[in-house]
C-alpha cells in the first residue's frame, strides 16, 4: 500500500487541517472532527447537518457552504461518525429554525444519527432527519438493511440546502429533501477495489477480465461479479437497473460519478453513453455532473445517479452554491 499520508491514524485530522488551510470559508474543528461554515448559523435558517465515514471526498465536508450544508461530521475512513460530533454540529448550526440531518442509509449512520437526534431533542434543538436510499442494486426488502444511500446524497444536500437558504421552515426543507430521495436512483460499478489505510491492501481481488456490479461506496464487493465489458455495455447495465426500478423519462438531473481512481476522460466516455441511453428512452439529462463527487478512496469505477426533475427541483438545483466541491452562481 502506498498512500500520501503521514500515518494510518492521522489521515482524517491531517486532511481536516488541509481543508481548513485551503478554505477560509470553512471553520474546521479538527479535534472534534466538525466542519462548519465560517460565517456561523444564520438566524431563522434551517441548519443542514450531514456526515458519514471519510474516504468519500468531496462528500460531505466539501459540500459545506452557502446553499448546501451548514456542517459536516466526518468519521474515520468508511466509519460513520459518532453522536457527539452530530450533537455538537447541530447545536453549532442551529439558527433557531431547527436542524435537518441528512443520513445515508447504513446501519452505522442511522444508529449514530438516531442517538444524536434523541439527545438533540433532549437539549431543545428541533431535529428532523431524511434518509437517503437511492441504490437500486440493493433490494429493499425485509431481508436487507434497505437500500444504501449513495450518489443522491449530493442531490439531497444541494437541493435541500437551496431550500433552506430561502428561509423555508424545517418541514418544507425536509419535504423537498425527501422528494429528491424519492425521485433518485443510483447504480455503481467497480473496475478495481480500493485500499483503506487500515486494511493496507485492496478490499477484494478482481481480475483484469472482471468487474463488480452493484457496488456501494465503502469498498465492499457488489451484488455480482461479471465479465469486464466496454463502457457502453457497463453503462447499459447500470441504466437498465435504474430504469427497471423507476422508468426514466422527461428531464433529469444526472450524475456520472467517479469512485476516485477513474480518470475524468473515462467518466466523460461514460456520460456520452448515459446521454445516448436516455435519448433512446425519450428522456434527457437537463442538468448534469461528471466527476469525482461521492468516492471510495482510490477505487476505479463509476456510478450513475438519475433524479427526475420538476420545476421546483430544477430551480433549487440551479440556485447559487458556494462550497469547496460544488460552486456556481457566486
Amino acid at each position, binding site marked *: 500500500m502506498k498512500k500520501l499520508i503521514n500515518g494510518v491514524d492521522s489521515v482524517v485530522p491531517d486532511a481536516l487541517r488541509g481543508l481548513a488551510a485551503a478554505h477560509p470559508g470553512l471553520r474546521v474543528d479538527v479535534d472534534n472532527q466538525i466542519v462548519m461554515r465560517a460565517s456561523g448559523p444564520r438566524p431563522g435558517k434551517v441548519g443542514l447537518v450531514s456526515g458519514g*465515514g471519510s474516504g468519500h471526498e468531496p462528500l460531505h465536508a466539501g459540500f459545506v457552504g452557502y446553499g448546501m450544508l451548514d456542517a459536516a461530521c466526518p*468519521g*474515520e*475512513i*468508511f*466509519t*460513520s*461518525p*459518532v*453522536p*457527539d460530533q452530530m450533537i455538537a454540529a447541530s447545536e453549532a448550526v442551529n439558527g433557531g429554525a431547527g436542524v435537518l440531518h441528512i443520513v445515508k442509509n*447504513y*446501519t*452505522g449512520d442511522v*444508529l*449514530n444519527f*438516531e*442517538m444524536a437526534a434523541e439527545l438533540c431533542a433532549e437539549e431543545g434543538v428541533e431535529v428532523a432527519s431524511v434518509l437517503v436510499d437511492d441504490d437500486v*442494486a*440493493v*433490494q429493499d426488502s*425485509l*431481508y*436487507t*438493511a434497505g437500500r*444504501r444511500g449513495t450518489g443522491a446524497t449530493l442531490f439531497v444536500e444541494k437541493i435541500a440546502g437551496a431550500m433552506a437558504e430561502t428561509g423555508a421552515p424545517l418541514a418544507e426543507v425536509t419535504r423537498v429533501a425527501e422528494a429528491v430521495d424519492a425521485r433518485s436512483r443510483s447504480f455503481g460499478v467497480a473496475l478495481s477495489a480500493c485500499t*483503506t489505510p*487500515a*486494511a493496507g491492501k485492496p*478490499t*477484494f481481488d478482481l481480475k483484469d477480465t472482471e468487474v463488480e456490479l452493484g457496488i*456501494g461506496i*465503502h*469498498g*465492499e*464487493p457488489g*451484488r*455480482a461479479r461479471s465479465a469486464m465489458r466496454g463502457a457502453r455495455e457497463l453503462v447499459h447495465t447500470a441504466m437498465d437497473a435504474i430504469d427497471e426500478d423507476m422508468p426514466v423519462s422527461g428531464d433529469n438531473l444526472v450524475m456520472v460519478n467517479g469512485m476516485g481512481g477513474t480518470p475524468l476522460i473515462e467518466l466523460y466516455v461514460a456520460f456520452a453513453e448515459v446521454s445516448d441511453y436516455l435519448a433512446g428512452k425519450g428522456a434527457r439529462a437537463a442538468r448534469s455532473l461528471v466527476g469525482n463527487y461521492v468516492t471510495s478512496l482510490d477505487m476505479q469505477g463509476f456510478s450513475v445517479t438519475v433524479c427526475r426533475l420538476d420545476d421546483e427541483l430544477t430551480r433549487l438545483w440551479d440556485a447559487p452554491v458556494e462550497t469547496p466541491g460544488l460552486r456556481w452562481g457566486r
Partner: protein
Amino acid sequence: MGAGDLDTAFFAAWIEEIARTVGVEKERLTRLDAAIGDADHGANLDRGFTAITQALAGTEPDTPGALLALVGSTLIRKVGGASGPLYGTAFREAGKCLGDASEVSATDLAAALQAALDGVQRLGSAAEGDKTMVDALAPAVRAMSRAAQEGKEPGEAIGAAASAALAGAEATVPMQARKGRASYLGPRSVGHEDPGAASTALVLVALRTVVTR
C-alpha cells in the same frame, strides 16, 4: 455474597483483557469485515477500547454497573459505525441492569447479558440467523442463564457462555446476512464469518480468560 461473585476489579480486568485481545486480533477482525463489509471492524473496536483504557486510567468507577456503563458510553462516543452504538448499548444496558451492586452473581451476570442482548436487538432489530453479533450473543445469553438457573458458579457459567458464543460465531459462516452492510451482498455473504459475531465471541472469551485466572 456468593462464592465466586465478581467485583469491580474483576470487571476492570475483563475490559483490560478485551482491549488487549482486540489489539492482538484487530487485523483478523478487519479481514473478516473486508470480505463482507468495509474493512473497519477491527480498527473500530480497537479505537473504542483504546479510548476506554485511557478513560479508566483516569477514574476507576466503583461498581461493576458504573464501570460497564462508562465502557458503553465511551464506545458510543468513540467508535461510530454500526458496532459503536450496538456494543455501546450492550455495555450500557448491562451496566444499568447491574445497578449499584458491588458484587455480581452468576444470576446477575445472566440478567445483565440478557439486557445487553435486548438493547442490541431493540436498536438493530436483528434476529438470530441474520448473521450479526446477535448470533454469538444470543446463544451466550442462553448458556449463561441456563448455568445460572442450574446454580452454577460464575466461572462455570461464563465458560458455557464463551463456548456458546464461539460456536454461534462459527455458525454465522453459512448464513446469508440480512442486517448491516453484509446484507447488501445477498447470497455472496454466505461462506464468511460475521466480524461482529467474531468480536462478540472474543469479548466472551476474554471474560472466560479473566475468570479462570
